[in-house]
């Protein structure tokens, strides 16, 4: 279980290699990469700036990983989330999960992303031709998170 919040970019291939080779009883690695889009709500986005709450953000991400580990039999999990100013096509977040079989890794990876979207203190501000604006939270993200409570 690893959490990193950083301004620097990350090397997905290196991260997945390290996770995959950590133990020979790992049979599946599932990963998700989130990246900056150049358009949002119909407007061109030139930069995306991410703010966070140092200390609380790391703790929230660790709690989300714990939640995944308590639900599914997973070997390893990794969350890397960038902060600061990013540009279109830049990587924002990597979530990776390793387990013996694919089903648990798929589920745990999606669970971590759904909770990260609604529970981890990050805030996005985007720069458009009309100026800067804060990104609004989406109801669909709350719905994505709440479906895990029923299952």
């Amino acid at each position, binding site marked *: 279980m690893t959490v990193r919040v950083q301004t620097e970019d990350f090397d997905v291939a290196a991260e997945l290699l390290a996770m995959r080779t950590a133990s020979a009883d790992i049979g599946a690695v599932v990963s998700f990469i*989130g990246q900056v889009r150049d358009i949002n709500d119909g407007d061109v986005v030139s930069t995306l700036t*991410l*703010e*966070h*709450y140092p*200390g*609380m953000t790391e*703790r*929230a991400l660790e709690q989300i990983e714990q939640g995944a580990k308590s639900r599914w039999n997973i070997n390893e999990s990794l969350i890397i*989330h960038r902060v600061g100013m990013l540009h279109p096509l830049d990587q*924002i*977040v990597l979530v990776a999960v390793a387990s013996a079989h694919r089903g648990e890794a798929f589920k745990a990876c999606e669970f971590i*992303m759904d909770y*990260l*979207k*609604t*529970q*981890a*203190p*990050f*805030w*996005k*501000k985007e720069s458009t031709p009309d100026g800067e604006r*804060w*990104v*609004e*939270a989406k109801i669909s993200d709350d719905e994505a998170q709440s479906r895990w409570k029923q299952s």
Partner: protein
Amino acid sequence: MNIKVLYFARIKESVNYSTEDIVLPADVSNINTLKSYLAKRGEVWADLFSGKQTVRAAINHELVDDMMAFNDGDEVAFFPPVTGG
């Protein structure tokens, strides 16, 4: 009671600073009463803390609901709904 209050994102920009130490009267002891207390500071504050906007709160790095009480020396944070990922 003395607490530290932090503001983030849109809220930080509205109130124009990120952190302050506040000495509270005895009847302000949970998030709900703290919001009402802050709302009396002026128009910007009333706009943020009188219930028109969704403002999330944390005590000592833990997300809490409005009825959660805090103690002397605690760190309280206010921020908009999160948008990471």
